[in-house]
């Protein structure tokens, strides 16, 4: 009961923010609504039992990545979009395509997914930091290390790209 209400609330919030992201003309509004999406998603993760991943969502996505976005938007002082889109057919074909996409996925999910017990808060116990850590550092150790290297590369690349040209 409470689960359903909570879920519907957060889902509505998420979708609202997402739509806002798409519709808002100003990048910073979009960025803020994306933050909203992420926060609500984090709460939904909590409901699904993913404590750790919810916090990671909060820290990594909302706390770090989006701040970076907002930072860049502020730096470039990006204003509202102006002018109309050039290739019109995207504009007109896009919405039907979108609806088709959602409808299809919903249809498939409804039909394919075997009927199982629904989600109740606290039913899933494997999402705590301990078990995630065990999984991460035993089963998925190699991917983890590879990811760290990837991040290192990304840092270097970002610095190289963003630095002023040394004349």
């Amino acid at each position, binding site marked *: 009961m409470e689960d359903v209400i909570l879920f519907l609330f957060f889902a509505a919030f998420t979708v609202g923010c997402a739509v806002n992201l798409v519709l808002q003309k100003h990048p*910073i509004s979009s960025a803020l609504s994306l933050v909203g999406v992420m926060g609500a998603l984090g709460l939904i993760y909590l409901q699904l039992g993913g*404590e750790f991943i919810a916090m990671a969502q*909060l820290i990594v996505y909302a706390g770090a990545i989006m701040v970076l976005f907002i930072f860049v938007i*502020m730096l470039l002082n990006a204003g509202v979009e102006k002018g109309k889109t050039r290739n019109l057919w995207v504009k007109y074909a896009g919405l039907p395509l979108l609806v088709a996409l959602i409808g299809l996925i919903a249809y498939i999910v409804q039909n394919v997914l075997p009927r199982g017990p629904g989600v109740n808060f606290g039913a899933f116990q494997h999402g705590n930091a301990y078990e995630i850590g065990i999984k991460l550092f035993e089963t998925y150790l190699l991917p983890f290390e590879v990811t760290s290297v990837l991040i290192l590369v990304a840092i270097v690349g970002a610095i190289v790209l963003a630095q002023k040209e040394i004349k």
Partner: protein
Amino acid sequence: MNFFVLSLIKAAVVAFVLMTTLAYLQWIERKVIAHIQLRVGPRRVGPHGLLQPLADVIKLLTKEDMLPSHVNKIFYFLAPFIAVFFALIAISVIPFGTEISIGPIKTAMQLADLNIGVLFILGLSGMGVYGVALAGWASNNKYALLGGLRSSAQMISYELPMAMAIAAPLLMLNTLSFRQLVDAQAGYYFGFVPRWTIFQGPFPQIFSFLLFLVAAFAETNRVPFDLPEAENELVAGFHTEYSSMKFASFFMAEYANMVTVSCVATLLFLGGWHPIFPAEYGSKFVPTVIFLIGGLISIYHGLNPARAFDRITLPIAGIVFIAVGAAFLIPIVATILLPLFWFAAKAGVILFLYIWVRGTMPRFRYDQLMRFAWTFMFPIAVVNLFVTGLLVALT
């Protein structure tokens, strides 16, 4: 009793206590700094200016709330709320004491005992950036924008050392729930050295503690890291364009952050509500003695007063003090109050450190600030974390 009702009551209590603390924290700050600078500080409103906070609140409430032109209204209004929201919600995972039982009800002195409380705090401190950044951006003022940019950059930069400094004791205590953290710090070495994290083997976390403190100063935009509101460079930083209650909410957010950070430091490093020396050496009489002394002093001042109505106020205060001190002797009350006392004492010490530093230190230059974060604190934090992990792994 119903969970919701209980939580509501607890929330109300915590909120009230927190608000009062914030208000009087600011009064204490003004007093302390005044005495550091050989002034007397506020003393007009009420005895020793004790009613100053109230006056300030009234002033801020009744001030004209002006809306500058060309601001982005939504975010201009949103920013203070974001700031204060994330600042206040952080307190909800802080445990103030052990389990207590009043009559039939048995509950913890804590709003929510998440078993990822530490991560929660980290996440919120990350979110806190938005308030400042948005305020700076939305209020369409170059000083405000610079302040916002600065503060967000500063917060992001100091987030890393802070997170690492937090991670080190977690490695040793091996939990993410504040309550278990504190429980893991119970007991004493050789009977008298407390097993707090800063004393605990295999690697006493003194470095982490210092790193955490410094990073916390930066996170809360306090002196010497209060670049975002460097008056002499950017008029008032990110809240240049804010007035009345919105300004007050930024103010409140800053102080709430201070309180949160001090509580977190207490829980992580100073053993939470565990007394500084064991009870068999009579630690349970410490609060009594302290309050007694306080009460006697104020009574003494009341007997030969500086001002007329000190004759009335100070003895009353003294009586109250002594009464509180006496309350600590009642066993049932003591079980509830002692942990609170120790917790508050430790957190208070750190808060006093904040004020002390503010009264003492000059402000950094911005480049110095950044260099300090990235070339000094970050490496040390990494090394500290590495050594801790190594020692924990070896033992």
